[in-house]
Structure formats: C-alpha cells, structure tokens
C-alpha cells in the first residue's frame, strides 16, 4: 500500500494537467464558435427588426395612400359644390362611403368665404360600432375648427398635409390623423379645407403587437416626438419621447438616438437601460415624419446561444470529468507498469543478494585445501538463474573428508530454499554421524516430514578416510559419479530413492578403496544434459573424454566448464550445473623415504608399475636392465595377487613399499587376500621342450631368477612378500 499513494497522487496530477489542456482547447474553440454565433444572432435580430419596421411602414403608407387618394378623387366635387353649400355634407358622406380607410371627412370653409354663413364645416364620420355614417357640424364655438392644426396648416400647403396624430375628442373620439388639402374656387382662392380622417387604432394594435422577441417592444412617435404606440398605454399621446428620455439616467445616449429618430433617419443603437443592454432599431414613416422603433433586449437576442452555451458547457464539463477519470485510469496503469519495472529491478537486486548468500553457503570452489598433499580437490556451481537448486559441500572432520553433491528438483527460488535446507541438514547431521547411509537416512526423514511441495533432492554423500583411502558412500538417486583409477568407470551405486520422497526409508551404504592417484568426479545432470541450440545434450561421452586427460582438480573443472560452454554456444543455460572432483594422493605417508604404490585387483593396474619402478630406479641409480628386471619381477608377483589372491568380484589391493639400503633395495609386496606363499612353489623345469612346457608358473620363476632374495611371511592377515635386489653398481 505504501507504494500506491505516490502513484495515485502522480496519476491525479498527470490527469489534471491533461484535462486542463483539453479544457483549454475546448474553451478556445468554443469562444470562436460563440463569437460567430453572436454575430449571426445579431444580424438575424436586425434583419427581423428591420423587416418588421419595413412591413409596418408599407402598411401605414398603404393606408395613407388610400386616404390621400380618397381625398384627391373628391377634390373636384368639393370645388364644384362650393356654389351649393348644402351639398357639401353629401360630399363628405360620399368620401366615407366609398373609402373604408376613411373614418371621417369634412369640408371646412375658410371663415368669411360665405357672407351669410361665416363658419361652415359639415363633418361626416363612421360609427365604428355600427358602421353607420353620422353627420355633425364642426362649426361650433366649442370646437372652433379654424384653430385646429389640420385646418390652419393646410391653408398654406397646396399638396396637402398630414396632421400630427391626435385624439379627436370633439369629432371621432379616437386616435387619428388627418390629411387636409385646400379646395380652391374658380378664381384660385382657397375656399375651404377638405379633410379625411384615418383612425390610428389599427396602428396601435398592429405595430404594438409586433413581437420579434418575447420581451421586445415597439415604440412609434410622431414628428414632434409624441408617443403614438408604446407598451405603456398611459403614455400614448400624453408623453413625448423627450419626456421619457428626461426620466432616464443615461440621457446622453438617448439624446442622440431621439435626435436621429426624429430627424427621419433609420438605423440601430445599442443603449443601456436600467443596467441592461438593449438594441433599438428605428426607421421613419417618410410622409408623416413619424418614427418607428423596435427595442430588443440584448439578452434575448443571445438567450438561445446563452442557454445553449450553458448546456454545452455542462456537457463539456461532464466530458472533461469523464476524461479526467479515463486519463487517471490510464495514467495509473502506466505508472503501475513503471512501478512494476521498479519492482522488477528491486526483485532482481534481491535475487542478486539471494544468489550471493547462496554462493556463500557452499564452500569456495578453488583450491579449498591447497595446504594438503593427500588430496587435491575442486568444485564449481553454475546456477541457471540467479539462484538454483544444486548444492555441494565438503569439510574435514577427524581425518575424514566429508563431501556431498545434490540436485533439488525444479529451479529458481523454490529449489534454492530447499537447497539451503539440504545443505544445513548435511552439515548438522554429518557433524556427529560417520556413516553416509545414516546421514542420508536422517536427512531423508527430516526432509520428507516437511516436504509439502513434493520437491525432492537427488543426493550423493561420501566419506573418505584420508589415511586409508577407504571411501564409504551412499547414493540417494543421484547421477552416478565417475571413478577414475587406471581406468575410468562409473562408480558402482545402488539406485536408492532421492531424499524427501518416502519417510523412514533405509539407504544402502557402499564402500570402495581409493588408492594413490585415484579420483572421483561428481556432477549434476546440468552437465550431461547441457543443451545446445539444437537441443543436443552434452552427454556422458563428452564428459568422459574430458575426464581422460589428467590434470589438477581445478584445471579439470575449468576445462569441463569450457567444453560445456563451447558445446552450448549461445543457447541459454537450461539447468544448474555442479561439479566436484576429488583426486586422492595418499600423501600422508612419508613420501621421500618410502616409495609406495597401491594397486587395485584389476589387471590394468599392472601398467602403473613401470612408472613407479622408473622412479625408484632413478633414485637408486639403477641401470635400465636392472630396472626392467625389477619391473618384470614385481609385475609377475603383483599379477599373481591381482588374479588369484581375492575371490572374483571383490575389491582387493596389492601394495608395494620400497626400502633402499646401502647395496640393496627391498620391495615389500603385501596383500590381504587368501594366504599364498610363492616361495613354496616348485621350480619350473625350463629345459623341457615346447610340447612339454606348461603354460603358467613362469612368473614366480622369473622373479626368483631376477631377484637376489625372496622371503614370505603371513602377518596381520596379510601376505607379505619381500623381494631383495642387490645393487652391484653401488657407489656409481
């Protein structure tokens, strides 16, 4: 767990950085998108507003055109009727009847045009509820029509003029505007003013209801700035634009706006009203000088994108959140992987340490007993991995060389642990046991008790009595060691079961005599089963051929390993490889004084005599003929011992010790075979011809002839034959 916290922290930081980077990219692209969307929405808003303004203008113009047309069409009738004042009322009635847009009409005579009738203004109007056309006279003192704008203004305006909108309280009782034109008589004098009234109530409902956006509203003002259409009904015709602007804080902005509006311009303005930005689109109604405007709060233009913006942002946030977790997950795995590599390194380090520990458990491989002359030994262990399951051990206790070699089934760490146990057991048990069979048996019991993983150990344990050359050994299923004497052969072993297989099993112990120059080579199957890349095995044959060269123990082990390396080549080492070589030299007998040789009861041993005798001859200064004679005599005696002293199939030996005297050399040949006195053998008749000669008996005859004296004694169950040769070249 300790290791996980930094990983988590590290992964969180990595994830945050990556997410922030992704967020930045998304934000920048969103801003671009937003900017262009805003632009689009703004132009759409202005299109919509300007469209509405234009639509309204067209409708107004249409109505005004119709009204103007109605007036002009009846102008000539009005002129014609000037001479018949009573018919003027009928003219106005006709105008209304013929033109639905006209709600009222009058012919107001210029005061004093008729002498007897100074004021005359018959007025017809439509009752909007019933559609009935009513008539009344405007020539009342209360109304005083000459004072009204529609009358006074028109007097001077030939082409006619539209009045300011007004609420005609005495007339139509509605918001209206009036188009007036002078009616001239035949002399060209203005006789009367003809008017048509147009109701503006429809304008309020039409333009006032224009809703390009839910909170947008429309305002229309007359040329003098009087409010005609406005969402606040109480302002209509009561207030001017100036009045409203005066009530605002940000007057300056509105001043230019109102100036532009009232001077008949069209355009748009962004104004701030009560802290909110609003767009004002405005356009004039040319003929009347009115100004229409549509006000749209900026919020509303952009509300969609802003709403969308929030949604998109929410989605982005969600996405980034997910991204964060994904990245963290990935980063964590990556870091874990990195951590695994770290762990692997750590493990490798530990394995290296384990390997060192394991190597320190086994004795040093090189010249462990270089100070000893009675044997030469070397050992080596090459694990296939850092740690292995092979082992060897040796030590000297009470003049005996204890040694062992073993191979734990399997490889690597599990095998190495069992190896450590095996080695400890060997040390413990052999510290007080002198029998290899017992040692192996005790070790087997210990190991089968605790062996839950079915790992077994092939094991060979040997105890060499360095004084006598007696080698006792016990083999527990291990590769048969090679015994090197004059010939080399596999040691005779009983194939016991390996250690750790069956509890309370007895192991058969064996024995062999080692003589001077004999050697034993122990190995694990990593040697014979070393594989090259074609899966060929190193094999016993190659091993034996290396063993047939006589070398020092250390050199032999090295040479063997080199041979294996050359054979294996680039292929990886398949198994642990261990070798142990013990070369027995029997040197604890005083060397210089008593030349000495022990021959086993094998005929091949006889060949060793030549070298031995040569050494003695050199020491004594013998001539070659004498040397050859002695060699021959000894060979004959020893051959007899080898061939006949011991029962067939049993181990035995013949030992020769040399004692030099002033003028003679004594050769003492001893054996522990059946009692036999060669001196008691009858002489061979050498005068017989070939037919009569017996085959055999010549050996002892030769010895007698060559040697100057031969004596026999039986002592300590040994045949001891002493052959004496006088040296006649004494002093040379």
């Amino acid at each position, binding site marked *: 767990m300790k290791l996980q916290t930094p990983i988590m922290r590290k992964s969180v930081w990595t994830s945050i950085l990556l997410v922030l980077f992704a967020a930045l990219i998304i934000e920048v692209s969103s801003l671009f998108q937003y900017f262009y969307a805003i632009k689009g929405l703004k132009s759409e808003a202005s299109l919509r507003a300007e469209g509405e303004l234009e639509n309204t203008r067209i409708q107004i113009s249409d109505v005004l055109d119709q009204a103007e047309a109605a007036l002009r069409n009846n102008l000539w009738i009005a002129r014609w009727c000037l001479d018949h004042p009573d018919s003027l009322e009928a003219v106005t009635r006709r105008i209304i009847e013929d033109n639905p847009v006209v709600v009222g009409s009058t012919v107001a005579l210029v005061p004093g045009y008729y002498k007897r009738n100074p004021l005359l203004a018959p007025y017809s109007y439509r009752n909007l509820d019933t559609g009935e056309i009513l008539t009344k006279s405007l020539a009342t003192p209360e109304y005083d029509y000459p004072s009204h704008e529609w009358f006074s203004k028109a007097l001077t305006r030939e082409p006619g003029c539209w009045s300011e909108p007004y609420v005609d309280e005495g007339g139509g009782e509605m918001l209206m505007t009036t188009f007036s034109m002078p009616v001239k008589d035949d002399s060209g004098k203005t006789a009367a003013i003809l008017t048509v009234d147009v109701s503006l109530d429809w304008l309020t409902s039409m333009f006032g209801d224009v809703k390009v956006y839910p909170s947008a509203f429309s305002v229309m003002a007359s040329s003098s700035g009087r409010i005609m259409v406005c969402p606040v009904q109480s302002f209509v015709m009561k207030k001017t634009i100036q009045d409203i602007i005066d009530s605002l804080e940000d007057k300056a902005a509105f001043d230019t706006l109102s100036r532009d509006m009232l001077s008949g311009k069209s355009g748009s303005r962004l104004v701030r009203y009560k802290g909110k930005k609003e767009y004002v689109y405005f356009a004039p109604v040319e003929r009347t000088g009115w100004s229409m405007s549509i006000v749209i709060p900026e919020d509303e233009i952009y509300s969609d994108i802003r709403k969308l913006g929030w949604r998109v942002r929410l989605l982005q946030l969600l996405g980034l959140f997910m991204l964060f977790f994904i990245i963290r997950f990935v980063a964590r795995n990556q870091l874990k992987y990195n951590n695994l590599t770290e762990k692997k390194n750590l493990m490798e380090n530990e394995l290296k340490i384990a390997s060192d520990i394991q190597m320190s458990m086994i004795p040093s491989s090189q010249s462990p007993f270089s100070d000893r002359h009675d044997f030469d030994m070397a050992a080596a262990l090459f694990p296939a991995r850092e740690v292995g399951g092979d082992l060897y051990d040796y030590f000297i206790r009470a003049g005996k060389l204890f040694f062992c070699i073993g191979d734990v089934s399997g490889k690597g760490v599990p095998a190495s642990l069992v190896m450590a146990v095996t080695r400890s057991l060997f040390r413990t048990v052999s510290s007080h046991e002198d029998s290899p069979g017992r040692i192996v048996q005790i070790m087997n019991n210990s190991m089968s008790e605790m062996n839950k993983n079915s790992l077994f150990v092939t094991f060979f344990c040997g105890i060499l009595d360095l004084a006598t050359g007696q080698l006792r050994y016990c083999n527990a299923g291990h590769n048969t060691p090679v015994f090197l004497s004059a010939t080399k052969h596999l040691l005779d072993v009983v194939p016991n079961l390996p250690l750790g297989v069956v509890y309370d099993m007895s192991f058969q112990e064996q024995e062999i005599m080692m003589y001077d120059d004999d050697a034993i080579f122990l190995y694990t199957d990593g040697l014979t089963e070393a594989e090259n890349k074609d899966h060929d095995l190193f094999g016993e044959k190659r091993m034996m051929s290396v063993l047939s060269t006589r070398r020092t123990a250390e050199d032999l082990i090295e040479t063997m390993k080199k041979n294996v390396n050359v054979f294996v080549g680039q292929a990886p080492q398949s198994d642990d490889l261990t070798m142990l070589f013990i070369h027995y030299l029997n040197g604890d007998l005083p060397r210089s004084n008593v030349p000495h040789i022990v021959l086993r009861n094998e005929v091949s041993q*006889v060949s060793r005599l030549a070298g031995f005798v040569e050494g003695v001859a050199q020491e004594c200064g013998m001539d070659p003929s004498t040397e050859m004679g002695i060699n021959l005599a000894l060979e004959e005696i020893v051959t007899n011992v080898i061939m006949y002293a011991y029962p067939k199939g049993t181990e035995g030996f013949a030992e020769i010790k040399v004692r030099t005297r002033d003028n003679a050399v004594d050769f003492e040949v001893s054996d522990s075979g059946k009692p036999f006195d060669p001196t008691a053998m009858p002489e061979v008749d050498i005068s017989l011809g070939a037919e009569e000669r017996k085959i055999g008996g010549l*050996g002892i005859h030769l010895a007698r002839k060559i040697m100057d004296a031969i004596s026999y004694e039986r002592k300590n169950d040994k045949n001891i034959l002493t052959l004496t040769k006088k040296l006649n070249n004494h002093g040379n």
Partner: protein
Amino acid sequence: MEIKINKTEEGKVVEFIGRLDTPAALEANETLAPLFEGATGTTILDCEKMTYISSSGLRIFLTLRKSALQKGGKVIVRSINDDIRSVFLMTGFLNLFEIQ
C-alpha cells in the same frame, strides 16, 4: 603396445611395438587369436621395437609355438634386444624358438 600383422613372402610377420606387459598381453591374446588357429605356415615375431615382455607375453609366444607345432607351422622370433634375450634365457625360451 601396438601389434602389426603383415603377410610377406617369408610368412606372417607380427610386429610388436612397445611394452608387452600383462594388460597388453591380455589384449594381444585376443588380437592374435586368429594366428593361433592358422599357424600352419611361417610366423615371424618381429621384436625389434619391443622394449619389455612379461610372462604373460611369453605365454603368447609359447601358445603360438605350441599350436604351430601341432599344425606343422614354424615360429621365428626376430631381433630381440639384450634385456629380452636375458628373459628368454632365464625362462629357457631361447631353446624353444628359432631366434634370428
């Protein structure tokens, strides 16, 4: 020990090179077994390069001699050195063989 067998006009020539000690004699015994069977003609034992002989070696010579006697063959020992001659002398072999 090395043993070479050559057939020449004189007969079969067996050349012994090196030491004919007991182990060598045991080996030679097998190598020369066919000679014992067919010892009808002349067999020449060339000992020029033989440096040593033990009783086991002498036995081979004697066995050959005996089978030659039985089968009407002839065995000649050639070129023995002084040391071997003394062995022949000690064992009475000098009288048993025709020595050249």
